[in-house]
């Protein structure tokens, strides 16, 4: 049996490496620049939604302010670049710091509520943030926003102000994010966070500091959101408050739900769907936003646990077929872990 499991593990690893290699050579495969743009946006959204996944999927608190963190990250690094001429690296670091600070400030009051209340309080924070970004025109440029010059750094000799170069930067961050979330959820802290999701009272009775765990998860979500925001800012080199309005809080929630929260790959699938679907619906032009909303709601209701669950089932089934010796139940157990 052990050999069978090992073979399976190797097989999974090989597939992961193949996927990574495909992603590395993607700019060579995808020749239409516009599609590469959508892929970069999807990867940035993947980082954003992974943050949401930590608080919503693993901690069980449906946060509506991920889009606000996205905005905070974008404005922080953008303003530092515009006013103090900071570079990309410093901008991202500053966004991380800002994420920690704002996450803690907002986490303290909002995490004292539960369930719908938490969602509504965080949605209120998103509205608050939007009003500040729009209203503080002296600093943020108001409703018009502001532009910054393109980044001057380069990565492995590819300048980052090209779409290809930036793609690799975002890819590195996305891979780091997925590794981080995997390590985090497998660690002692991650198990404590999941225990909070399952039963707060029980978790606290076995010595888990429930509030600290919730705050930690919220901070992680804030930091990942801010990193995604900073990456977005230096990709498009322009920012305005319109992209961080409450409607987009809905999009983050949907990206999480469509993919399936509480899993590693769910946010990836969800982000690609949320970025690509509106483009597919271009034919509907005027009704695009409306059609997008309706289609997504249908997806969420047809697949209440996201598209990942049927995919996992298929995957388990395929693995069982390939390694015939193991029965399906064992494979199911392994995939549920």
């Amino acid at each position, binding site marked *: 049996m052990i050999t069978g499991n090992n073979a399976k593990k190797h097989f999974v690893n090989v597939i992961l490496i193949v996927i990574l290699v495909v992603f590395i050579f993607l700019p060579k495969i995808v020749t239409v620049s516009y599609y590469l743009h959508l892929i970069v946006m999807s990867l940035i959204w993947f980082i954003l939604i992974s943050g949401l996944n930590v608080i919503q999927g693993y901690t069980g608190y449906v946060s509506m302010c991920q889009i606000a963190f996205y905005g905070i990250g974008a404005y922080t690094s953008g303003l530092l670049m515009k006013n103090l001429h900071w570079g990309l690296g410093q901008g991202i670091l500053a966004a991380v710091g800002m994420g920690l600070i704002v996450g803690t400030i907002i986490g303290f009051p909002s995490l004292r509520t539960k369930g*719908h209340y938490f969602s*509504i309080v965080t949605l*209120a924070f998103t*509205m608050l943030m939007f009003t*500040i970004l*729009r*209203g503080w025109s002296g600093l943020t440029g108001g409703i018009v926003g502001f532009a910054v010059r393109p980044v001057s750094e380069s990565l492995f000799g590819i300048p980052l102000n090209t779409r290809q170069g930036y793609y690799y930067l975002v890819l590195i961050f996305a891979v780091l994010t997925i590794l981080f979330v995997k390590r985090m959820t497998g660690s002692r802290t991650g198990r404590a966070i999941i225990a909070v999701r399952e039963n707060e009272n029980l978790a606290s009775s076995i010595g888990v500091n429930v509030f600290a765990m919730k705050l930690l998860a919220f901070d992680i979500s804030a930091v990942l959101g801010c990193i995604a925001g900073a990456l977005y800012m230096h990709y498009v080199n322009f920012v305005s408050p319109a992209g961080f309005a*409450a409607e987009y809080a809905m999009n983050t929630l949907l990206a999480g739900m469509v993919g399936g929260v509480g899993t590693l790959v769910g946010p990836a699938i969800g982000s690609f769907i949320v970025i690509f679907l509106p483009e597919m619906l271009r034919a509907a032009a005027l009704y695009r*936003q409306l059609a997008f909303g309706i289609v997504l*709601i249908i997806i969420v209701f047809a697949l209440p646990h996201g598209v990942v669950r049927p995919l996992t089932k298929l995957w388990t089934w395929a693995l069982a077929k390939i390694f015939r010796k193991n029965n399906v139940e064992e494979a199911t157990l392994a995939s549920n872990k």
Partner: protein
Amino acid sequence: MSTMVLQQVINGIVTGGLYTLIAMGLSQIFGVLGISHFAHGSVVIIAGYLGYTFTRVLGWALFPSVILSIICCTVVGLLMERFAYRPMMTKPQINIFILALGMLFIVDNLAEMIWGPDPLAIQAASNVPIHIGPAVLTTFRLAVVLINFAVLFGLWGLMKFTKLGRSIRAMAQNREAAKILGVNLNQTSALVFGIGSALAGLCGIFYTSMIQIVPSSGGTLVLKGFAVMILVGLGNIPGTIVGGLIMGLVESLGATFISEAFKDSYGFLVLILAMLFKPDGLFNRKTQIKY
């Protein structure tokens, strides 16, 4: 200076009454069904836009138009309860949340397609200014305040003294026990939605007459309603009135004395601060809150 304060306090009381109207429906619905009914904002703007269409486009008289638009949006609320929420009651909570938000944004988009993105307003029937000391109040605004209080007083009586009120309170306390004791759950929740939507419709009409309506008003207003609801705690009618007034006063005073640009944010700031010190609501009397 003091004139300005007095004027802003009056304005705050007038707009605060509107927030109370919304929060009242939201609070009853949340208490009875545990639904965060975001589409309540849609009901508000539907009433506002219908009122505009009846009076300004079709040129009908004010009073029948108002009644008709309130009836229409009550029907919309009832339809939402019957065909959107009720089939979903057995599904996970988060799906209901998404459904509610989804309906809000869909109605927003539809309203923008039908009535366009520009702000619209209903001409108020009578706008004779009344001078209260140095401050000014129009007769229409005075009527709004009086109607608000009359309606809320009626609602309080309904909740306190009638069989329906007892059923609603019973359902909010314990759904299962209420069912065993013969409360018709479906009928009661439909009535709660009906009453809440009628209040929202009234609010939509007032809002469109006093301020202006744009498609995104629904989202902003419903969030302020939720802010009031969370600020005071559930199922507390006098508390909700006070909460609405706090919200209105903070906004109008903040807009005048701090900055007009952040008008929408002061109320949310108060909410976040209140969460820091009283997470169960300002006037919480150990009512059972079903999350």
